């Protein structure tokens, strides 16, 4: 098991306005799996992703990654953990506005001792002709490709994607999903993707459905669909 969550609980607010966002979540994820965390707004899926990513803390419970407990890690160790093992893709691309596409990808490469070949990544992402442009010169889809490049160039063990298609149109969304699928297959990273789009579950190896902070259903897909075949 590459990643194991045991009895994760998380709440926000105090007293009467206290909201339990995650209620005793447990699950295990295998290496190289494409996982989709599915649920409506407020179901706790993004919070769960952020806890896995070490940018938010659980109130209780354990996260074990490659047989190490995250709760034993201090801030420095957590940063090192993110640096070495994680790649992040957000709904908003958060690219550095005054760096070119290539340079934004280099920002990710800098963090790795063995980064992937930048030219190859740019090629895979279809950004070759845009590599010297600034983010403001790109479309939303192209910017998200760049953000994916920044996340995967360091060849992370786990790629965390928080609604990566949330701000994109149908076609662009499908392109981005196909790209993440390709990355997963080509480089063998574990992908954990948060989405409220029900259709995306069909491309996952492992689907976790969340509602009101609890896992309503989790299952492994017997028959996966290709991203290109998805429709919604």
């Amino acid at each position, binding site marked *: 098991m590459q990643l194991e969550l045991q009895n994760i609980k998380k709440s926000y607010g105090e007293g009467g306005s206290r909201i339990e966002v995650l209620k005793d979540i447990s699950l295990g994820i295998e290496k190289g799996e494409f996982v989709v965390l599915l649920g409506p707004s407020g179901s706790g899926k993004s919070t769960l992703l952020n806890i896995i990513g070490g*940018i938010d803390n659980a109130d209780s419970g354990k996260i074990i990654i490659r047989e190490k407990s995250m709760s034993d890690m201090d801030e420095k160790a957590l940063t090192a953990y993110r640096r070495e093992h994680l790649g992040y893709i957000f709904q908003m691309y958060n690219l550095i506005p005054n760096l070119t596409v290539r340079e934004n990808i280099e*920002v990710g490469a*800098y963090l790795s001792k063995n980064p992937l070949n930048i030219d190859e990544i740019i090629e895979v992402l279809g950004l070759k002709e845009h590599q010297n442009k600034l983010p403001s010169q790109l479309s939303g889809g192209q910017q998200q490709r760049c953000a994916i490049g920044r996340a995967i160039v360091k060849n992370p063990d786990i790629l965390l994607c928080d609604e990566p298609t949330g701000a994109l149109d149908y076609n662009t969304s499908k392109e981005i999903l196909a790209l993440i699928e390709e990355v997963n297959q080509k480089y063998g990273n574990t992908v954990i993707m948060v989405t409220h789009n029900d259709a995306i579950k069909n491309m996952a190896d492992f689907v976790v459905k969340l509602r009101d902070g609890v896992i309503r259903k989790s299952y492994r897909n017997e028959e996966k669909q290709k991203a290109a075949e998805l429709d919604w």
Partner: protein
Amino acid sequence: MKNPLKKRLLRELVGDISKYIVIFILLVLSIGFVSGFLVAGESMIIAYDESFEKYSIEDGNFRTEDKLTESQKNRIENKGVTIYENFYVEKGLDNNTKLRIYANREEIDRVCVMEGRLPEELLEIGIDRMYADNNGLRIGDTLISDGKSYTIVGLVALSDYSALFYSNNDMMFDSSAFGVAVVSKSQFEEYGDSEIHYNYSWIYDNKPADDIEEKEISDELMEYIADKASLENFIPGYLNQSITFTGEDLGKDKAMMQVLLYIIIAIVAFVFGITINNTIHKEACVIGTLRASGYTIHELIRHYMAMPLIVTIIAAIIGNILGYTVFKNTCVAMYYGSYSLPTYVTVWSADAFLKTTIIPMLIMLVITYFILRKKLSLSPLKLIKRDLSGKRQKTAIPLSKGIRFFDRFRIRILIQNKSSYIILFVGLLFANMLLFFGMMLPPLLVHYQGIVTDTMLAKHTYLLQIPAGTIDSDNELSAAFSYTFLKSKINTNNTTAEKFTAVSLKTIGEHGARIEDVTLYGIRDNSRFINADFDDKTVLVSSAYADKYGLKKGDVVTLKEPYEDKYYGFKVTGTYDYDGGIAIFMSKKHLNEIMGFDEEFFSGFFSDTEITDIDEKYIGTVVDEESLTRVSRQLMISMGSMMYMVDGFSVILFIVLIYLLSKLIIERNVQSISMAKILGYSRMEIAKLYIVPTAIVVVASLLISYPILANVMVAIFRAMLKQMMSGWMVIWLDPSVYVKMFLMGVITYVIVAVLEYRKIGRIPMSEALKNVE
């Protein structure tokens, strides 16, 4: 692999060029201006100090009625001194000024040639450089005296006349009306015996260790010379204002500049604080993403510190270059405008470098580091969500629906941006403080000019010069005899004249305060000039004295004899409304008794009209309107030009700060403005929503800052003047300055608002699409 974030730096500089230019200007001006001033001051002080040895400045001088014979000279020299002839003549010139002309000096008080050469031929003259400046004279011009025409061949500085005091008893020098000059030996020999003043300078064979020992030796020397020759004047070096005044005064401006420096450092720290804070706000999402990707806090701190640090270093280098060239030259010109100093060499000032460069840079480093450290320690998630404050307003403050929608919107903006507006208020307070500092001093000086003349004790006050030995001789019989003889010489038939006793004592410098002279006036009963009732115990301190030291009824002031270990305590019974000086008033009888004088003793006259029947040599100091305005005039000359520089500097900083702070408000609201655009608000409507609240805050901040500043600045001025000056300047704040400052603030903001209006037009609607919670 090199950190790719480094590639951002240059683009960051170009992208936010206006902010960096503003910071750059702020630093270059601060560093340049203050270091220029400190370097000039230090170079001048060194030039002044070194001039004693370099030009063999005398240890004292005396003047005799007749030329000393060789044997008289030898006998005086046996008292441990070497005597040099330093004769002079005084000539009135056709330009209504007076020149004291010496033969060129070769052994003592040597002359520094500033421009041209020393006179060699008959009718050639080298005149004091400052006197020449003040009278518009140049080399090649001619001066006419007694029908003779002198050609100016050189502009010089006489080492014993760095301040051009005509008489050592004068309260202030006047370098427009009086100057010194040198002519060749052959020219000097042309002057008749009757014209020559037999002045001698001396150098001690063994220099006294301090002023107290110097006083003992010089007193003894004076008595000895008086015994051997007819002594007209005797000035030991340590009392010679022409020599010592400049040295004492050079340090005074430094106090003012240091106050300015502290204000500047506070402003620089503040500006760095807000700019770095603003950068973090702007870049929060990127920072959060980088942190989530695994960038360490220190990698990001280094990255975000790099640009401010580079700008600071470049500004420090350029500021120092300007400080040592342009600004230094301006300040040096200012000193040369006040004093007749010899040539100087620019010195490297470690103190100036530390205060103007190292300290601001350290402040920048520390503030930037701590703000970054604090903000970047927030979780990546908070950064991505731009949740930087830690606290969030949970419920909306209810606003009446009766308030117009636009006004409610503006109130919401004020509430939402309250932290930015607090920063704006603090920034304006700093900017106003600097402006206040620059603008208040000149009217203060002018007002002081008015006060000293308006509150003169009498139209003419004469302080008599009582020859030594007359009152403090150990031989009382001889003293009594001398005084009886003197009385016939120092009486006047002027019916408006009123006798008084005046004694000068010194403060004891409690709690590290400056030691200064206090004049004690002994006033006769029913005085026509001093409007107060005196009994045996009445001790009134002048209002200036009371104000400076916070004296009130019942306090005891302790004063001492200069150079003697004799102390006097006076219990204050009230104040006398006199702002012209640090003085104590009591009955003449009381003062004479305390000082051990005869009951009839007096040492001065108040008079409505000029006293003409007392020999000039018995008159020490004359205080009249002319002499008093001379003090303030010279103050205006020596401080005025600097004040105007401070003024100009303050105005620039004021503009820079308002610009920076207003920019900050708009930048913080970029997303809301963008959203308003998407909703269909016009640029003018958005400007009304976002610029009007800022304008209200600017106006309110300006108005609120004035009473705060008035109190703070009065405290600063008091501390500064206490350190700077003997005597006292009653602190008066010119109300018209508030109006000028307000107008300047509003006009500056209007200009900035126009720039902001343009900026609003350039904000893209896509800004609103960035994720915020």
